[in-house]
């Protein structure tokens, strides 16, 4: 179920990219005709982009035990650098073979994105790399666990443990937990319609501080995700966001004279 929906989301994203690519091709044709003019006139839009993570939103519907919401936002600082943030809240009931626990908490990530993609004209698409500082406060509730017994003594007539499995239901709350981490982000954002962006990002996290409960562990941290698959945590988001244009900046208008513009357009753009 999880795998299928992830795949479908990927397909949807690919489909949307297809339409984006076509848009680009059309602009290429137009560009060859009016290169000088467009470079001289190209404007960069600055503003605030706010949105929601579709991955956590849809997961809340299809996966029992998961309820999560993540708001995303970024603000353009310079031509290539954006201040970026994610704010989220997650309630996640994990039912493993051995332990059943519920993690509840809020997280905030703040950092920067660097847009490595050279846009045509005044487009605002991004292929970016970024870094975040992440912080989460949360609680864990240990719902149940099955004691790991080791009573399969060699040479015995039985092939299993001598005693039956014993599951306990402590319902113990571990409150006031927190974690800090650093997150490396790679992603893209494409303008589907005017001011509407669809984004996708993957994240690698590494914990800086992890305040664990006495007698248990933080197996899942809101915003960070699983803590047990090696030293890095991983995450993704698919964001749908709206761009609120605040002001426009001419793209180096003084430097661009018709003579300079032509070779520049050939090499860079």
């Amino acid at each position, binding site marked *: 179920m999880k795998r299928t929906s992830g795949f479908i989301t990927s397909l949807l994203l690919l489909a949307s990219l297809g339409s984006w690519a076509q848009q680009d091709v059309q602009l290429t044709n137009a560009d060859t005709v009016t290169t000088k003019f467009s470079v001289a006139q190209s404007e960069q839009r600055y503003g605030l982009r706010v949105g929601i993570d579709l991955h956590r939103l849809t997961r809340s519907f299809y996966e029992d035990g998961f309820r999560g919401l993540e708001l995303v936002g970024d603000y353009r600082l310079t031509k290539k650098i954006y201040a970026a943030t994610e704010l989220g809240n997650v309630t996640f009931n994990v039912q493993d073979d051995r332990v059943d626990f519920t993690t509840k908490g809020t997280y905030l990530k703040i950092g920067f994105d660097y847009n490595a993609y050279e846009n045509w004209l005044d487009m605002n698409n991004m*292929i970016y790399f970024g870094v975040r500082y992440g912080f989460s406060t949360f609680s864990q509730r240990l719902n149940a666990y099955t*004691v*790991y017994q080791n009573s399969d*003594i060699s040479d015995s007539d039985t092939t299993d443990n001598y005693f039956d499995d014993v599951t306990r239901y402590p319902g113990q709350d571990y409150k006031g937990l927190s974690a800090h981490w650093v997150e490396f982000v790679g992603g893209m954002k494409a303008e589907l319609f005017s001011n509407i962006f669809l984004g996708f990002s993957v994240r690698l996290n590494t914990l800086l501080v992890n305040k664990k409960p006495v007698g248990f562990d933080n197996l899942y941290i809101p915003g960070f995700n699983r803590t047990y698959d090696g030293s890095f945590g991983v995450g993704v988001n698919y964001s749908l966001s709206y761009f609120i244009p605040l002001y426009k900046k001419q793209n180096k208008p003084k430097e661009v004279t018709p003579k300079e513009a032509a070779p520049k357009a050939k090499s860079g753009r």
Partner: protein
Amino acid sequence: MKRFIGSVLLLVIIGAYMISCEKDDICAEGTPTTPNMVVAFYNDENRGAYKPVANLKYFVEGQQDTISVGQVDSTALVPLRVDSPSVKWGFKYTHTSDTGQKLEDIDYIEFKYVTRDEYVSRACGFKTVFTLNSSLPGNVNPVLTGSTWLKDVQIENPEILNEDETHVRIYY
């Protein structure tokens, strides 16, 4: 443009992989989980000397499953119940009498203890460790019932945290 599509494709593939794969780890062999009680058999006439037992079999009173130790050994691993403060094991000793008759002697020992659960890891979950109750006058622990072959039981180390040391001495 090609490079752009390529990098986007790569991102999508990495992302799809990340959400779909879930590592299924199992509790590694050798991880200290719920320990068994280590009992050692000593010579009742010469209390400092081990006395290996041949054909030792043991079972929880009222249960069919029997643990049999193949080799002749002076120690045995005895599991304790994690869901009960006591367990009564029957120890069966098979031997041949002087007249060539095959004899089966069974004596029971009840062990009383308190349990404590400790977190190990995600794959192993929790383990239970035990502390044997002190033997008090009027509330002896362990309790030896019958003495067809077993003579005495003494606690050597009440804290059952691992299987590295002897917890109980049985004299016969």
